[in-house]
């Protein structure tokens, strides 16, 4: 569904992505982990062409998006929903208006139909009472869920999550994890998740890729990922108290 071929990107003369190749299959929950500055968010931004690579190709459903014109890019972007790290809600709009925005811009639905769909998504994410509030009046966790509701309002095929659980308490983080797993199981949505949180990665991922200094050091299903012999991966696992003999395997949905 998404394929990176030999992608390289430099920012301020620093190589952020160094000839990386990988593929995300349809229906997968593909998790990208790594230390800060490893190139995770940059990789995610390339998928929706918010950034262009210096060299290499990026394919979405077989179409190279790197040199695509604006109208074709718009068509491809309609396949995506994106949850940004800070939710990126428009501050002057209410929660309901934020979630309704893609419907107002891209469909000719009546106001009543738009509100019905918005309320469905708000219910799905337990935001029934937040509709008339402004983003500044709700918590960070709620803002993330509103961002997610907006990302999925047009029923996209692919959802990109940039640090969906960063800055959230553990309970809210697990709730967001559950929503992501639920969407994959119920709607068959392909997800790409960027996170530092390995607990979350192991719980929701069907495959985990680790980036380090712009290179891929591991790309494997969770059960194999925690047994990786790569020293960087081992160090990353241990930093979050995850060992090969821990109980973490029990958390990996459907992998063990």
């Amino acid at each position: 569904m998404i394929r990176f071929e030999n992608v390289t990107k430099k920012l301020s003369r620093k190589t952020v992505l160094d000839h990386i190749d990988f593929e995300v299959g349809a229906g997968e929950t593909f998790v990208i982990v790594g230390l800060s500055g490893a190139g995770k968010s940059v990789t995610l931004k390339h998928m929706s062409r918010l950034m262009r690579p210096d060299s290499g190709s990026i394919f979405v459903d077989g179409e190279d998006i790197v040199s695509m014109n604006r109208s074709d890019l718009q068509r491809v972007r309609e396949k995506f929903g994106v949850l940004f790290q800070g939710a990126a809600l428009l501050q002057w709009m209410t929660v309901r208006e934020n979630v309704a925005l893609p419907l107002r811009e891209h469909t000719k639905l009546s106001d009543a139909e738009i509100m019905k769909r918005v309320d469905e998504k708000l219910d799905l994410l337990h935001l029934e009472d937040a509709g008339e509030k402004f983003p500044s009046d709700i918590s960070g966790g709620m803002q993330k869920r509103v961002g997610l509701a907006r990302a999925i309002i047009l029923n996209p095929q692919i959802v990109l999550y940039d640090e969906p659980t960063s800055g959230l308490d553990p309970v809210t983080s697990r709730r967001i994890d559950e929503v992501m797993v639920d969407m994959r199981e119920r709607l068959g949505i392909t997800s790409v998740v960027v996170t530092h949180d390995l607990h979350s990665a192991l719980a929701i991922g069907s495959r985990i890729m680790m980036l380090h200094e712009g290179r891929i050091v591991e790309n494997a299903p969770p059960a194999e990922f925690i047994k990786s012999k790569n020293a960087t991966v081992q160090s990353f696992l241990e930093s979050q108290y995850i060992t090969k003999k821990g109980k973490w395997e029990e958390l990996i949905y459907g992998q063990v």
Partner: protein
Amino acid sequence: MCYPVRSAERTGARIIQLLHNIGHAMIMLMEAVWFSRLAFGPRSRRETMTQMYVTGIKSLPVITVVALFIGMILALQTGLELQRYGQEKYIGSAVAVVMIREMGPFMSALIIAASVGSAIAAQIGTMVVSEEVAALEVMSINPNRFLVMPRLVALVIMMPLLAVYTNILGILGGAVVGTTQLDVSFRAYMDNALDIAHNKDLYVGLLKAFIFGIIIATVACHQGFMTTEGAVGVGRSTRRSVVVSFLVILVIGYMITRLFYI
């Protein structure tokens, strides 16, 4: 690398960056002009009206005060000189010509660049650093239509109206000084003011205000979109928006005056 070469390299890089920025601003402006046919359509009407309200109505208090005092200062300065020659009855003409040709559009543009333009740059800059603009792009919502176009339309509609308002209040401010301190009757002041002002002066003034509106919207939105580096970057964009708008307004204002009066 020796100093002259490094210096030439830096200068060259700055010129390329400047040309790149001008090109970006022009493309943004052209797209916003293209989308302006949708300004009062169902999707943009509310935002356009909001921006017109912010630009026009919310700016009235400060414009009122500035216009009145500009008119009063003009009347006082010219009136005292004219009084030496016993020609103080002509202060109406002096105030009207200066206000309608130059000070009306110029002062209203400076006020709007400092208040509305800076607010636009800060808002769009904040949206850039908090990824709201990126979110719009991913949602296939063109930021030039969604953000730039309503602000551009609001400014090009409201600026000429504000310039006329500034002219009227400036002339009235001059009348206050003329009647209370220079012993010129209100009727004589107004007769002189209206006699001297030609239609051409009004049209050129309105043209200036219209073009200043385009300049403020373009500079403010462009500086907002160029924002990097968080809160510090937002502050920098806001400051640059005001400084660049002032400079461009001065230069373009001079060029328009030269074009129509020489």
